[in-house]
Protein backbone atom coordinates (compact mmCIF):
# COMPACT_ATOMS: atom_id res chain seq x y z
CA UNK A 1 0.00 0.00 0.00
CA UNK A 2 2.62 2.42 1.10
CA UNK A 3 4.99 1.17 -1.50
CA UNK A 4 2.56 1.42 -4.36
CA UNK A 5 1.64 5.00 -3.54
CA UNK A 6 5.23 5.92 -3.21
CA UNK A 7 6.12 4.35 -6.52
CA UNK A 8 3.26 6.23 -8.15
CA UNK A 9 5.11 9.40 -7.58
CA UNK A 10 8.57 7.94 -7.92
CA UNK A 11 9.84 8.80 -11.32
CA UNK A 12 13.50 8.02 -11.04
CA UNK A 13 15.39 7.02 -14.17
CA UNK A 14 14.62 3.36 -13.53
CA UNK A 15 10.96 3.97 -14.24
CA UNK A 16 12.06 5.68 -17.39
CA UNK A 17 9.11 8.05 -17.72
CA UNK A 18 11.22 11.11 -17.32
CA UNK A 19 14.55 11.86 -18.88
CA UNK A 20 16.17 14.57 -16.88
CA UNK A 21 18.71 15.01 -19.63
CA UNK A 22 18.97 14.34 -23.30
CA UNK A 23 22.56 13.32 -22.77
CA UNK A 24 21.69 10.30 -20.72
CA UNK A 25 23.26 7.12 -21.96
CA UNK A 26 21.20 4.06 -21.38
CA UNK A 27 23.66 1.68 -19.89
CA UNK A 28 21.68 -0.65 -17.69
CA UNK A 29 24.61 -2.53 -16.24
CA UNK A 30 26.58 0.48 -15.08
CA UNK A 31 23.64 2.25 -13.45
CA UNK A 32 22.65 -0.85 -11.60
CA UNK A 33 26.07 -0.98 -10.09
CA UNK A 34 26.93 2.62 -9.43
CA UNK A 35 24.26 5.28 -9.91
CA UNK A 36 26.43 8.01 -8.46
CA UNK A 37 30.15 8.60 -8.65
CA UNK A 38 32.65 11.42 -8.71
CA UNK A 39 35.58 11.54 -11.10
CA UNK A 40 38.64 13.62 -10.21
CA UNK A 41 36.43 16.06 -8.39
CA UNK A 42 38.20 19.13 -7.03
CA UNK A 43 36.19 21.79 -5.24
CA UNK A 44 36.96 25.11 -3.65
CA UNK A 45 35.82 28.61 -2.85
CA UNK A 46 37.59 31.56 -4.50
CA UNK A 47 41.31 30.99 -4.03
CA UNK A 48 41.14 28.11 -1.59
CA UNK A 49 40.83 24.45 -2.45
CA UNK A 50 38.66 22.34 -0.19
CA UNK A 51 38.68 19.00 -1.98
CA UNK A 52 41.42 17.59 -4.16
CA UNK A 53 40.71 15.15 -7.01
CA UNK A 54 38.22 12.90 -5.31
CA UNK A 55 37.14 9.81 -7.24
CA UNK A 56 34.52 7.87 -5.34
CA UNK A 57 31.64 5.58 -6.29
CA UNK A 58 28.47 4.97 -4.39
CA UNK A 59 27.14 1.47 -5.07
CA UNK A 60 23.42 1.24 -5.70
CA UNK A 61 21.12 0.40 -2.82
CA UNK A 62 23.76 0.71 -0.12
CA UNK A 63 24.70 3.15 2.61
CA UNK A 64 28.06 4.85 2.26
CA UNK A 65 29.44 6.68 5.30
CA UNK A 66 31.80 9.62 4.86
CA UNK A 67 34.00 10.02 7.90
CA UNK A 68 36.90 12.23 8.84
CA UNK A 69 37.93 14.96 11.25
CA UNK A 70 36.14 18.32 11.35
CA UNK A 71 37.05 20.53 8.42
CA UNK A 72 38.23 17.70 6.19
CA UNK A 73 35.76 18.68 3.46
CA UNK A 74 33.27 15.83 3.74
CA UNK A 75 30.25 18.12 4.15
CA UNK A 76 31.35 20.26 1.22
CA UNK A 77 31.73 17.05 -0.77
CA UNK A 78 28.21 15.97 0.15
CA UNK A 79 26.75 19.35 -0.83
CA UNK A 80 28.56 19.18 -4.15
CA UNK A 81 26.64 15.99 -4.98
CA UNK A 82 23.35 17.85 -5.43
CA UNK A 83 24.77 21.26 -6.35
CA UNK A 84 23.84 22.90 -3.07
CA UNK A 85 27.09 24.85 -3.29
CA UNK A 86 26.05 26.59 -6.50
CA UNK A 87 24.66 29.47 -4.45
CA UNK A 88 27.79 29.95 -2.40
CA UNK A 89 29.88 32.86 -3.60
CA UNK A 90 33.20 31.91 -5.16
CA UNK A 91 32.35 28.24 -5.55
CA UNK A 92 34.27 26.40 -8.26
CA UNK A 93 34.75 22.77 -9.23
CA UNK A 94 36.85 20.63 -11.57
CA UNK A 95 36.21 17.08 -12.62
CA UNK A 96 32.72 15.62 -12.65
CA UNK A 97 29.92 14.18 -10.56
CA UNK A 98 28.15 11.48 -12.55
CA UNK A 99 24.59 10.51 -11.81
CA UNK A 100 23.28 7.77 -14.09
CA UNK A 101 26.01 8.48 -16.64
CA UNK A 102 25.36 12.18 -16.80
CA UNK A 103 27.62 14.82 -15.37
CA UNK A 104 25.31 16.75 -13.06
CA UNK A 105 27.31 19.93 -13.66
CA UNK A 106 26.54 19.67 -17.37
CA UNK A 107 24.59 22.61 -18.80
CA UNK A 108 21.71 20.37 -19.80
CA UNK A 109 21.09 19.32 -16.20
CA UNK A 110 18.61 21.40 -14.29
CA UNK A 111 19.56 21.69 -10.62
CA UNK A 112 15.88 21.75 -9.65
CA UNK A 113 15.28 18.36 -11.25
CA UNK A 114 18.59 17.05 -9.98
CA UNK A 115 17.70 17.91 -6.39
CA UNK A 116 14.44 16.10 -6.80
CA UNK A 117 16.39 12.98 -7.69
CA UNK A 118 19.11 13.56 -5.13
CA UNK A 119 17.44 14.48 -1.84
CA UNK A 120 19.16 15.91 1.21
CA UNK A 121 18.57 15.98 4.95
CA UNK A 122 20.52 18.32 7.20
CA UNK A 123 22.24 18.36 10.54
CA UNK A 124 19.44 20.22 12.27
CA UNK A 125 15.78 19.51 11.63
CA UNK A 126 14.48 22.30 9.41
CA UNK A 127 10.71 22.09 9.08
CA UNK A 128 9.01 24.82 7.06
CA UNK A 129 6.60 27.29 8.66
CA UNK A 130 3.47 25.42 7.51
CA UNK A 131 1.35 22.55 8.77
CA UNK A 132 2.86 19.08 9.23
CA UNK A 133 0.90 17.78 6.26
CA UNK A 134 2.00 20.66 4.04
CA UNK A 135 5.59 20.10 5.15
CA UNK A 136 5.56 16.52 3.93
CA UNK A 137 4.03 17.34 0.56
CA UNK A 138 5.78 20.68 0.01
CA UNK A 139 8.20 19.18 -2.51
CA UNK A 140 5.47 17.16 -4.19
CA UNK A 141 3.42 20.33 -4.58
CA UNK A 142 6.32 22.42 -5.88
CA UNK A 143 7.15 19.84 -8.55
CA UNK A 144 3.45 19.11 -9.12
CA UNK A 145 4.07 15.38 -8.78
CA UNK A 146 0.53 14.53 -7.72
CA UNK A 147 -3.00 15.80 -7.94
CA UNK A 148 -4.24 18.06 -5.20
CA UNK A 149 -6.76 15.52 -3.92
CA UNK A 150 -4.06 12.89 -3.46
CA UNK A 151 -1.83 15.06 -1.31
CA UNK A 152 -3.29 14.04 2.05
CA UNK A 153 -2.94 10.35 1.21
CA UNK A 154 0.66 10.90 0.16
CA UNK A 155 1.42 12.79 3.36
CA UNK A 156 -0.09 10.00 5.44
CA UNK A 157 1.74 7.23 3.62
CA UNK A 158 5.06 9.05 3.87
CA UNK A 159 4.60 9.66 7.57
CA UNK A 160 3.78 5.95 7.98
CA UNK A 161 6.94 5.07 6.10
CA UNK A 162 9.10 7.04 8.52
CA UNK A 163 7.10 5.72 11.49
CA UNK A 164 5.79 9.08 12.59
CA UNK A 165 2.16 8.69 11.58
CA UNK A 166 0.84 7.02 14.75
CA UNK A 167 2.30 9.71 16.96
CA UNK A 168 0.83 12.65 15.03
CA UNK A 169 -2.18 11.25 13.17
CA UNK A 170 -4.51 13.77 14.81
CA UNK A 171 -2.10 16.70 14.46
CA UNK A 172 -1.63 16.80 10.69
CA UNK A 173 -2.69 20.46 10.52
CA UNK A 174 -0.61 21.59 13.51
CA UNK A 175 2.68 23.44 13.44
CA UNK A 176 5.70 21.16 13.11
CA UNK A 177 7.64 23.29 15.59
CA UNK A 178 5.84 21.72 18.53
CA UNK A 179 7.23 18.28 17.66
CA UNK A 180 10.31 16.96 19.43
CA UNK A 181 13.68 17.28 17.70
CA UNK A 182 13.65 13.61 16.69
CA UNK A 183 10.12 13.85 15.33
CA UNK A 184 11.06 16.97 13.39
CA UNK A 185 13.99 15.18 11.81
CA UNK A 186 11.77 12.24 10.84
CA UNK A 187 9.38 14.77 9.31
CA UNK A 188 12.23 16.22 7.28
CA UNK A 189 13.12 12.71 6.12
CA UNK A 190 9.50 12.11 5.12
CA UNK A 191 9.55 15.40 3.23
CA UNK A 192 12.73 14.44 1.37
CA UNK A 193 11.39 10.96 0.57
CA UNK A 194 8.04 12.25 -0.66
CA UNK A 195 9.46 13.54 -3.94
CA UNK A 196 10.82 10.06 -4.70
CA UNK A 197 14.57 10.63 -4.82
CA UNK A 198 16.96 8.07 -6.19
CA UNK A 199 19.84 9.09 -3.95
CA UNK A 200 19.55 10.52 -0.43
CA UNK A 201 22.30 12.66 1.09
CA UNK A 202 22.39 12.87 4.88
CA UNK A 203 24.56 15.52 6.53
CA UNK A 204 25.04 14.33 10.12
CA UNK A 205 21.31 13.73 10.47
CA UNK A 206 21.49 12.69 14.12
CA UNK A 207 24.03 15.23 15.35
CA UNK A 208 21.43 17.30 17.19
CA UNK A 209 19.28 14.42 18.46
CA UNK A 210 19.07 12.50 21.72
CA UNK A 211 20.03 8.78 21.76
CA UNK A 212 16.45 7.48 21.48
CA UNK A 213 15.63 9.68 18.48
CA UNK A 214 19.00 8.81 16.99
CA UNK A 215 18.22 5.11 17.05
CA UNK A 216 14.81 5.63 15.43
CA UNK A 217 16.36 7.74 12.67
CA UNK A 218 19.10 5.14 12.22
CA UNK A 219 16.67 2.26 11.90
CA UNK A 220 14.68 4.25 9.36
CA UNK A 221 17.80 4.91 7.33
CA UNK A 222 18.69 1.21 7.39
CA UNK A 223 15.19 0.38 6.17
CA UNK A 224 15.52 2.69 3.17
CA UNK A 225 18.10 0.49 1.45
CA UNK A 226 18.19 -1.19 -0.98
CA UNK A 227 15.41 1.00 -2.43
CA UNK A 228 17.59 4.10 -2.20
CA UNK A 229 21.26 4.83 -2.46
CA UNK A 230 22.32 6.69 0.67
CA UNK A 231 25.37 8.80 1.42
CA UNK A 232 25.76 9.84 5.06
CA UNK A 233 28.26 12.20 6.64
CA UNK A 234 28.74 11.33 10.27
CA UNK A 235 31.03 12.21 13.15
CA UNK A 236 29.89 9.18 15.00
CA UNK A 237 32.05 6.18 14.08
CA UNK A 238 29.82 3.80 15.99
CA UNK A 239 26.92 4.98 13.89
CA UNK A 240 28.89 4.43 10.72
CA UNK A 241 29.73 0.90 11.85
CA UNK A 242 26.08 0.22 12.71
CA UNK A 243 24.44 1.28 9.47
CA UNK A 244 26.94 1.66 6.63
CA UNK A 245 28.03 -0.97 4.15
CA UNK A 246 30.67 1.24 2.58
CA UNK A 247 32.86 3.92 4.06
CA UNK A 248 35.24 6.62 2.86
CA UNK A 249 37.78 8.44 4.99
CA UNK A 250 38.55 12.09 4.19
CA UNK A 251 41.51 13.97 5.53
CA UNK A 252 42.57 17.52 4.64
CA UNK A 253 40.54 17.53 1.44
CA UNK A 254 41.96 14.21 0.24
CA UNK A 255 40.20 10.89 -0.03
CA UNK A 256 42.56 8.73 1.98
CA UNK A 257 40.81 5.42 1.89
CA UNK A 258 37.50 3.92 0.82
CA UNK A 259 35.93 0.49 0.57
CA UNK A 260 33.73 -1.79 2.62
CA UNK A 261 32.81 -0.26 5.95
CA UNK A 262 34.07 -3.23 7.88
CA UNK A 263 37.48 -2.86 6.32
CA UNK A 264 37.87 0.94 6.43
CA UNK A 265 36.51 1.35 9.94
CA UNK A 266 37.92 -1.78 11.57
CA UNK A 267 41.07 -2.69 9.71
CA UNK A 268 42.26 0.29 7.66
CA UNK A 269 45.26 0.16 5.38
CA UNK A 270 46.48 3.72 5.92
CA UNK A 271 48.10 4.97 9.07
CA UNK A 272 46.03 8.22 9.19
CA UNK A 273 42.80 6.26 8.89
CA UNK A 274 43.93 3.92 11.63
CA UNK A 275 44.74 6.88 13.86
CA UNK A 276 41.30 8.32 13.23
CA UNK A 277 39.19 5.20 13.71
CA UNK A 278 41.00 4.17 16.84
CA UNK A 279 40.40 7.60 18.35
CA UNK A 280 43.99 8.77 18.35
CA UNK A 281 43.00 11.76 16.21
CA UNK A 282 40.05 14.15 15.87
Amino acid at each position, binding site marked *: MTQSLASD*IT*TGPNQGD*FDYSQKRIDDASSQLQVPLKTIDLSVGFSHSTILNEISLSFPKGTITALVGPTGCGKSTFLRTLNRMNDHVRGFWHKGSVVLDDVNIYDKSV*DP*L*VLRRNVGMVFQRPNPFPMSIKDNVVSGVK*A*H*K*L*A*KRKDLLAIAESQLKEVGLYDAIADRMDDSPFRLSGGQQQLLCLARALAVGPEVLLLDEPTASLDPVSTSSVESLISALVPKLTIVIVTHNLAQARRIAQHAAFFFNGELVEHGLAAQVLEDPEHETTAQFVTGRMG
Partner: protein
Amino acid sequence: MFSKSHLLRRKILDKAMWALATFSLVCIVAPLAWLVWGVVGRALPHWNWSLLTTKPGGANGGGLSTLIVGTLVITAGVAVVAGIIGIGSGLYLSELCPEGKGKILRTASEVLSGVPAIVLGFLGYTVLVVEFKWGFSLGAALVVLSIMVVPYIAKATEVAILQVPTAFREAAEGLGMTRWQTLRRAVLKPAAPGIVTGLIIALAIAMGETAPLLYTAGASNNFPTSHITHSPVGFLTYAVWTDYNQPLAGSAELSATAAVLLLVIVLMLILLSRLVIRVSKKYSINNSHGGR
Protein backbone atom coordinates in the same frame (compact mmCIF):
# COMPACT_ATOMS: atom_id res chain seq x y z
CA MET B 1 2.26 14.24 -13.49
CA PHE B 2 5.72 15.70 -13.78
CA SER B 3 6.05 17.75 -16.91
CA LYS B 4 8.63 19.88 -18.60
CA SER B 5 6.11 22.62 -19.25
CA HIS B 6 5.41 22.86 -15.53
CA LEU B 7 9.13 23.14 -14.84
CA LEU B 8 9.38 25.86 -17.46
CA ARG B 9 6.43 27.70 -15.91
CA ARG B 10 8.06 27.57 -12.49
CA LYS B 11 11.30 28.96 -13.88
CA ILE B 12 9.54 31.77 -15.73
CA LEU B 13 7.61 32.63 -12.57
CA ASP B 14 10.88 32.64 -10.64
CA LYS B 15 12.50 35.03 -13.10
CA ALA B 16 9.39 37.20 -13.24
CA MET B 17 9.18 37.55 -9.47
CA TRP B 18 12.84 38.47 -9.11
CA ALA B 19 12.41 40.97 -11.94
CA LEU B 20 9.54 42.47 -9.93
CA ALA B 21 11.72 42.58 -6.83
CA THR B 22 14.39 44.39 -8.82
CA PHE B 23 11.73 46.77 -10.06
CA SER B 24 10.77 47.52 -6.45
CA LEU B 25 14.35 48.67 -5.87
CA VAL B 26 13.89 51.02 -8.80
CA CYS B 27 10.66 52.22 -7.16
CA ILE B 28 12.72 53.31 -4.17
CA VAL B 29 15.84 54.73 -5.76
CA ALA B 30 14.27 56.44 -8.78
CA PRO B 31 11.76 58.63 -6.89
CA LEU B 32 14.47 59.54 -4.39
CA ALA B 33 16.76 60.62 -7.21
CA TRP B 34 13.86 62.43 -8.89
CA LEU B 35 13.05 64.22 -5.64
CA VAL B 36 16.61 65.35 -5.06
CA TRP B 37 16.99 66.40 -8.69
CA GLY B 38 13.61 68.16 -8.70
CA VAL B 39 14.41 70.21 -5.62
CA VAL B 40 18.04 70.91 -6.45
CA GLY B 41 17.06 71.78 -10.02
CA ARG B 42 14.81 74.53 -8.73
CA ALA B 43 17.32 75.95 -6.29
CA LEU B 44 20.57 75.74 -8.20
CA PRO B 45 19.92 78.28 -11.00
CA HIS B 46 19.29 80.92 -8.36
CA TRP B 47 22.04 79.81 -6.02
CA ASN B 48 24.02 82.57 -4.47
CA TRP B 49 26.32 82.25 -1.51
CA SER B 50 24.89 85.45 -0.09
CA LEU B 51 21.64 83.56 0.57
CA LEU B 52 23.42 82.00 3.50
CA THR B 53 24.37 85.34 5.00
CA THR B 54 21.35 87.50 4.23
CA LYS B 55 18.34 87.88 6.46
CA PRO B 56 14.95 86.84 5.08
CA GLY B 57 12.47 89.53 3.99
CA GLY B 58 12.90 92.57 1.81
CA ALA B 59 11.95 93.17 -1.77
CA ASN B 60 13.50 90.06 -3.31
CA GLY B 61 12.80 87.67 -0.47
CA GLY B 62 16.23 88.04 1.09
CA GLY B 63 18.23 85.06 2.30
CA LEU B 64 18.05 82.34 4.90
CA SER B 65 20.71 83.26 7.44
CA THR B 66 18.50 83.68 10.50
CA LEU B 67 16.51 80.56 9.64
CA ILE B 68 19.68 78.48 9.39
CA VAL B 69 20.82 79.74 12.76
CA GLY B 70 17.33 79.16 14.18
CA THR B 71 17.29 75.54 12.97
CA LEU B 72 20.76 74.96 14.41
CA VAL B 73 19.77 76.48 17.76
CA ILE B 74 16.60 74.38 17.95
CA THR B 75 18.54 71.23 17.00
CA ALA B 76 21.24 71.92 19.55
CA GLY B 77 18.58 72.47 22.20
CA VAL B 78 16.92 69.18 21.30
CA ALA B 79 20.29 67.45 21.47
CA VAL B 80 20.69 68.62 25.07
CA VAL B 81 17.13 68.19 26.34
CA ALA B 82 16.10 65.05 24.46
CA GLY B 83 19.64 63.70 24.70
CA ILE B 84 19.65 63.77 28.50
CA ILE B 85 16.12 62.43 28.86
CA GLY B 86 16.49 59.81 26.12
CA ILE B 87 19.87 58.46 27.20
CA GLY B 88 18.89 58.54 30.88
CA SER B 89 15.68 56.68 30.33
CA GLY B 90 17.28 54.19 27.92
CA LEU B 91 19.95 53.57 30.53
CA TYR B 92 17.36 53.02 33.22
CA LEU B 93 15.24 50.67 31.11
CA SER B 94 18.15 48.53 29.97
CA GLU B 95 20.46 48.51 32.93
CA LEU B 96 19.15 49.99 36.16
CA CYS B 97 15.52 49.00 36.52
CA PRO B 98 14.64 45.75 38.28
CA GLU B 99 14.22 42.73 36.00
CA GLY B 100 10.89 42.77 34.15
CA LYS B 101 9.83 46.10 35.63
CA GLY B 102 10.30 48.47 32.74
CA LYS B 103 7.69 46.95 30.49
CA ILE B 104 5.03 49.63 30.91
CA LEU B 105 7.55 52.46 30.67
CA ARG B 106 9.06 50.94 27.54
CA THR B 107 5.69 50.44 25.89
CA ALA B 108 4.65 53.97 26.81
CA SER B 109 7.79 55.31 25.20
CA GLU B 110 7.23 53.28 22.04
CA VAL B 111 3.59 54.31 21.82
CA LEU B 112 4.58 57.94 22.35
CA SER B 113 6.63 57.64 19.17
CA GLY B 114 3.38 56.90 17.35
CA VAL B 115 1.68 60.14 18.40
CA PRO B 116 1.24 62.22 15.23
CA ALA B 117 3.50 65.26 15.10
CA ILE B 118 0.58 67.61 14.49
CA VAL B 119 -1.13 66.49 17.72
CA LEU B 120 2.04 67.45 19.58
CA GLY B 121 2.17 70.76 17.74
CA PHE B 122 -1.48 71.47 18.50
CA LEU B 123 -1.06 70.80 22.21
CA GLY B 124 2.23 72.67 22.26
CA TYR B 125 0.33 75.70 21.07
CA THR B 126 -2.78 75.42 23.25
CA VAL B 127 -0.93 74.42 26.40
CA LEU B 128 2.56 75.91 26.31
CA VAL B 129 2.09 78.96 24.12
CA VAL B 130 -1.38 80.00 25.32
CA GLU B 131 -2.10 78.43 28.70
CA PHE B 132 1.41 78.70 30.13
CA LYS B 133 1.75 82.08 28.39
CA TRP B 134 5.18 81.20 27.00
CA GLY B 135 4.32 82.76 23.69
CA PHE B 136 5.91 81.51 20.46
CA SER B 137 9.29 80.55 21.75
CA LEU B 138 12.31 78.31 21.74
CA GLY B 139 11.14 76.73 25.00
CA ALA B 140 7.82 75.55 23.58
CA ALA B 141 9.55 74.23 20.44
CA LEU B 142 12.11 72.31 22.48
CA VAL B 143 9.52 70.64 24.69
CA VAL B 144 7.42 69.50 21.74
CA LEU B 145 10.33 68.32 19.59
CA SER B 146 11.93 66.54 22.53
CA ILE B 147 8.72 64.62 23.24
CA MET B 148 8.90 63.56 19.60
CA VAL B 149 12.45 62.23 19.55
CA VAL B 150 13.02 61.04 23.13
CA PRO B 151 11.50 57.60 22.39
CA TYR B 152 13.89 57.19 19.50
CA ILE B 153 16.97 58.11 21.53
CA ALA B 154 15.82 55.95 24.44
CA LYS B 155 15.35 52.97 22.14
CA ALA B 156 18.73 53.44 20.47
CA THR B 157 20.40 53.71 23.89
CA GLU B 158 18.65 50.61 25.16
CA VAL B 159 19.57 48.55 22.10
CA ALA B 160 23.17 49.72 22.17
CA ILE B 161 23.52 48.82 25.85
CA LEU B 162 21.83 45.46 25.46
CA GLN B 163 24.39 44.59 22.79
CA VAL B 164 27.24 44.96 25.24
CA PRO B 165 28.16 41.42 26.29
CA THR B 166 27.37 40.46 29.86
CA ALA B 167 30.94 39.29 30.17
CA PHE B 168 32.12 42.93 30.16
CA ARG B 169 29.93 43.67 33.15
CA GLU B 170 30.94 40.53 34.94
CA ALA B 171 34.57 41.25 34.35
CA ALA B 172 34.19 44.79 35.67
CA GLU B 173 32.22 43.68 38.69
CA GLY B 174 34.73 40.95 39.23
CA LEU B 175 37.39 43.67 39.35
CA GLY B 176 35.50 45.17 42.26
CA MET B 177 34.15 48.26 40.53
CA THR B 178 31.11 49.94 41.97
CA ARG B 179 27.91 49.86 40.00
CA TRP B 180 28.50 53.35 38.62
CA GLN B 181 32.07 52.54 37.63
CA THR B 182 30.91 49.36 35.94
CA LEU B 183 28.26 51.31 34.12
CA ARG B 184 30.57 54.01 32.93
CA ARG B 185 33.50 51.88 31.88
CA ALA B 186 32.16 48.49 30.89
CA VAL B 187 28.70 49.44 29.62
CA LEU B 188 28.43 53.04 28.48
CA LYS B 189 31.80 53.14 26.80
CA PRO B 190 31.31 50.15 24.52
CA ALA B 191 27.73 51.28 23.86
CA ALA B 192 28.71 54.85 23.06
CA PRO B 193 28.88 54.54 19.26
CA GLY B 194 25.37 53.08 19.17
CA ILE B 195 24.02 55.80 21.44
CA VAL B 196 25.69 58.57 19.47
CA THR B 197 24.37 57.14 16.20
CA GLY B 198 20.85 57.09 17.59
CA LEU B 199 21.21 60.66 18.81
CA ILE B 200 22.44 61.89 15.43
CA ILE B 201 19.58 60.24 13.55
CA ALA B 202 17.11 61.67 16.07
CA LEU B 203 18.53 65.13 15.42
CA ALA B 204 18.17 64.60 11.68
CA ILE B 205 14.49 63.82 12.25
CA ALA B 206 13.98 66.77 14.59
CA MET B 207 15.68 69.15 12.17
CA GLY B 208 13.30 68.23 9.36
CA GLU B 209 10.10 68.61 11.37
CA THR B 210 7.60 71.34 10.61
CA ALA B 211 4.21 70.46 12.06
CA PRO B 212 5.28 70.57 15.71
CA LEU B 213 7.16 73.83 15.20
CA LEU B 214 4.71 75.99 13.25
CA TYR B 215 2.59 76.84 16.28
CA THR B 216 5.28 76.63 18.95
CA ALA B 217 8.43 78.25 17.59
CA GLY B 218 6.34 80.68 15.60
CA ALA B 219 8.01 82.61 12.84
CA SER B 220 10.70 85.22 12.83
CA ASN B 221 13.05 86.90 10.41
CA ASN B 222 15.48 87.79 13.15
CA PHE B 223 18.22 85.85 14.82
CA PRO B 224 17.15 83.85 17.87
CA THR B 225 17.49 85.78 21.11
CA SER B 226 18.74 84.56 24.44
CA HIS B 227 15.17 84.34 25.76
CA ILE B 228 13.73 80.89 26.20
CA THR B 229 10.17 82.20 26.16
CA HIS B 230 8.36 85.07 24.44
CA SER B 231 10.76 85.16 21.53
CA PRO B 232 9.78 83.41 18.29
CA VAL B 233 12.44 81.51 16.38
CA GLY B 234 12.59 81.15 12.60
CA PHE B 235 13.54 77.80 11.09
CA LEU B 236 14.32 76.38 7.65
CA THR B 237 11.31 74.12 7.18
CA TYR B 238 9.09 77.15 7.77
CA ALA B 239 10.54 78.77 4.65
CA VAL B 240 9.86 75.65 2.59
CA TRP B 241 6.26 75.53 3.80
CA THR B 242 5.38 79.22 3.52
CA ASP B 243 7.29 80.46 0.53
CA TYR B 244 6.68 77.82 -2.12
CA ASN B 245 3.43 79.32 -3.38
CA GLN B 246 4.01 82.98 -2.57
CA PRO B 247 3.58 85.31 -5.52
CA LEU B 248 6.55 87.43 -4.42
CA ALA B 249 9.64 87.36 -6.58
CA GLY B 250 12.26 84.99 -5.25
CA SER B 251 9.96 83.24 -2.78
CA ALA B 252 9.65 79.96 -4.63
CA GLU B 253 13.40 79.85 -5.15
CA LEU B 254 13.98 80.58 -1.47
CA SER B 255 11.68 77.71 -0.59
CA ALA B 256 13.60 75.31 -2.84
CA THR B 257 16.92 76.57 -1.51
CA ALA B 258 15.80 75.94 2.06
CA ALA B 259 14.74 72.43 1.01
CA VAL B 260 18.15 71.78 -0.52
CA LEU B 261 19.89 73.00 2.63
CA LEU B 262 17.74 70.65 4.71
CA LEU B 263 18.56 67.73 2.42
CA VAL B 264 22.27 68.50 2.64
CA ILE B 265 22.22 68.72 6.43
CA VAL B 266 20.21 65.51 6.80
CA LEU B 267 22.54 63.69 4.41
CA MET B 268 25.56 64.92 6.32
CA LEU B 269 24.09 63.76 9.62
CA ILE B 270 23.35 60.31 8.18
CA LEU B 271 26.87 60.04 6.79
CA LEU B 272 28.22 61.20 10.14
CA SER B 273 26.31 58.44 11.92
CA ARG B 274 27.78 55.90 9.51
CA LEU B 275 31.23 57.32 10.11
CA VAL B 276 30.77 56.87 13.85
CA ILE B 277 29.91 53.22 13.34
CA ARG B 278 32.81 52.68 10.95
CA VAL B 279 35.39 54.34 13.17
CA SER B 280 34.19 52.52 16.26
CA LYS B 281 34.41 49.21 14.40
CA LYS B 282 37.86 50.00 13.09
CA TYR B 283 39.29 50.27 16.56
CA SER B 284 37.40 47.30 17.87
CA ILE B 285 39.37 44.19 18.70
CA ASN B 286 36.63 42.23 17.03
CA ASN B 287 37.79 43.54 13.72
CA SER B 288 40.59 41.02 13.75
CA HIS B 289 38.04 38.24 13.50
CA GLY B 290 37.23 39.47 10.00
CA GLY B 291 33.90 40.35 8.38
CA ARG B 292 30.32 40.28 9.62
